[in-house]
């Protein structure tokens, strides 16, 4: 089951279906064992996750440069967030990226999953080949490659030259730099594609058979069978990809040389956070930025969950 379904189940009150009880009398008596098995995780949760979250909350109300003690400044960091044009720009850049790259990537993933239907010869081969970019796409090496591919003397321009089209410096132009990153994200459609493939396999062949008998064409079958039954998986992919896309860092960093440029056009939110917190001694502000990010991600996820009621079809 997906993370998403689990959370839904946990959130809903039990509908009279109890979780399978542990028989043989060890119910609730596993406390000690659980403590041992969960010890590393508890430690991690406390020391590495929750503890720092609390500390970060505190720090967001201070001015702190890691060299001298934090000075309390109240909500100044937060008010600064909304007055900082570069921060607002980074939000704009990030939102643009999320709202273009994620849908396009998912559409590509779904399309390919549909094309790679059952019984296709060489399916494993195609699947692997299309998946490979997904694996390598997050690496610095590929980001370096991408920067060159879209540079002035790069591959893309050489290719265009074959058709007599004069290319330009795609990564050095504020109008196009971000979209080279969007393209990079779309290139990595392999992972969601595999999830879609698995989801498609779960749709019983019977339904399609029955529809064929009724005379339904390909499009009709897609609209009435495939799409509705896939919606939980589309939803799952959407949630995860959106959360991931908001946290994009490596590609923007490498392609822009760490500057978020040119002219802040690739200044992803996390990149700005990094600059502020780790190079400009402004850790209080970076903490406030981090909490804003949590808020944004949480809100987006909640919106996703809420909207899912209207278009996701569960058969439980």
């Amino acid at each position, binding site marked *: 089951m997906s993370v998403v379904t689990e959370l839904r189940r946990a959130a809903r009150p039990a509908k009279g279906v109890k979780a399978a009880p542990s028989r043989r009398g060890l119910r609730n008596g596993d406390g000690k064992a659980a403590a*041992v098995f969960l010890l590393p995780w508890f430690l991690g949760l406390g020391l590495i996750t929750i503890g720092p979250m609390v500390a970060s909350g505190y720090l967001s109300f201070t001015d702190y440069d890691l*060299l001298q003690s934090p000075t309390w400044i109240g909500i100044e960091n937060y008010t600064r967030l909304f007055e900082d044009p570069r921060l607002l720009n980074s939000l704009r850049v990030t939102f643009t990226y999320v709202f273009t790259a994620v849908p396009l990537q998912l559409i590509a993933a779904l399309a390919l999953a549909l094309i790679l239907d059952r019984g296709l010869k060489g399916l494993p081969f195609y699947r692997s080949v299309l998946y490979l970019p997904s694996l390598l796409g997050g690496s610095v090496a590929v980001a370096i490659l991408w920067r060159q591919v879209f540079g*002035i003397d790069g591959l893309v321009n050489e290719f265009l030259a074959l058709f007599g089209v004069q290319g330009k410096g795609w990564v050095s132009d504020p109008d196009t730099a971000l979209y080279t990153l969007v393209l990079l994200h779309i290139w990595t459609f392999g992972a969601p594609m595999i999830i879609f493939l698995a989801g498609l396999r779960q749709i019983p062949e019977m339904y399609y058979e029955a529809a064929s008998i009724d005379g339904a064409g390909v499009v009709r079958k897609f609209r009435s069978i495939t799409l509705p039954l896939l919606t939980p998986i589309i939803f799952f992919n959407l949630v995860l990809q959106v959360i991931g896309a908001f946290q994009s860092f490596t590609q923007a960093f490498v392609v822009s040389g*760490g*500057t978020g440029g*040119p002219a*802040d056009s690739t200044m992803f939110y996390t990149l700005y956070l990094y600059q502020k917190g*780790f190079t400009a*001694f402004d850790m209080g502000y970076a903490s406030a930025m981090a909490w804003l990010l949590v808020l944004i991600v949480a809100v987006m996820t909640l919106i996703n969950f809420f909207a899912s009621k209207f278009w996701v079809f569960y058969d439980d």
Partner: protein
Amino acid sequence: MRRPRSSVRVGALLAVAALALTACAGSDEPAAEATSSGPPEAVEIRFSWWGSDTRHELTQQVLDKFEEKYPYITVVPDYTDWNSYFDKLGTAVAGGDAPDVITQEERFLNEYASRGVLADVSKLGVDTSKIDDSVLQSGTIDDALYGVATGVNAYSIIADPAAFAAAGIEMPDDTTWTWEEYVEIANEVSAKTGKAVYGAQDYGFNEPGFSIFARQRGESLYTDDAKLGYDEKTLAEWWQYSLDLQTGGGQPDAAKTIEVDAGGPEQSLVATGTGAMAWFWTNQLTAITNASGKELKLLRVPGESESERTGMYFKPAMYYSISAKSEHPEESALLVDFLLNDPAAGEILLSDRGLPANTDVRAAVQDKFSATDKQAAEFLADLEDEIVDGPPVPPVGAGQVAEITRRINQEVLFGRLSPADAAKQYTLEVGSAIGS
């Protein structure tokens, strides 16, 4: 209820194994500290600097000589390019892992000093007696010497006579030329060579250029009391000339400019033989000459005799500072002393870090100067009568100005901001950066 003994044991064993593994993989810790008395124990110090490959090689040679003289000290080099140097330094300092000896720059000196990152060099036994007082002043804040200037240079234009010849244009007379003429000549060079050779490289990324421009008009970038000292119209004018060059073809289009700038001095237009003029510091002449393989010329910037006064100035090229948290301050001081005062170091570095600040060293190595060093030295000597004064020490927060300048320049080049609007925004951002 059974106790899960085996799982605990296994888990513990694995955890210990993991920690042991990571302990082995940890960083090299510096060996035992040198005691102030008795035979010195082996010490390791870290020295950071920025620059091109030429400087890295030279510095490495100097460090080898230093280690010959003090065999118990090992110097771990930590060098990067200029663009990412201060980002990385910031991270290192914030993480409590600052290098022992740090190459500093005037824009950042104040900032680091005010955060208590730098030690007072004068208290560590570095001999500064042979260094000119005014030079020492530039690194002194509130009576503490936070950085010793390594040498002196000036922001100027490096020109390629061969490029001018190829375009069939005479080299300009740099004592009289105006800004208009600068633009015209650059445009002409581009036109005559069909852009095979551009007239100039964009100058807008670096604010020293504007500092000179403002000074020529009796204004200045900063004032003595850490405020902004220029008129926005002046700044707009400065950027307008840039745009004139771009539209006139004298400099490449915006995207190319950005790519070229990212490549540093050795990728500049002049260094690659595709440009006639570029703005650089005099001590970068050697590196660029090496890269271009031709003989280059140093020119005064335009407009030196055009307005009220000259704008060029002598800049302390860079500083050597010592980390306040260094575990080996004495050894660090020895290194700084060696770099500044030892003729052996001077012979190797020559004028790579500016004309040597130590006057004795400067005199001693004058004969060893390469052709380019001599060029730079003569050029600076010529300027001595013309240069009136130096600009005030950049205030705290000036470190951000480098990035602000670069970014706003990009906006101007791409036509996203008009020079007037750019000037306004720049003033706003720099103003808030320096807290004025």
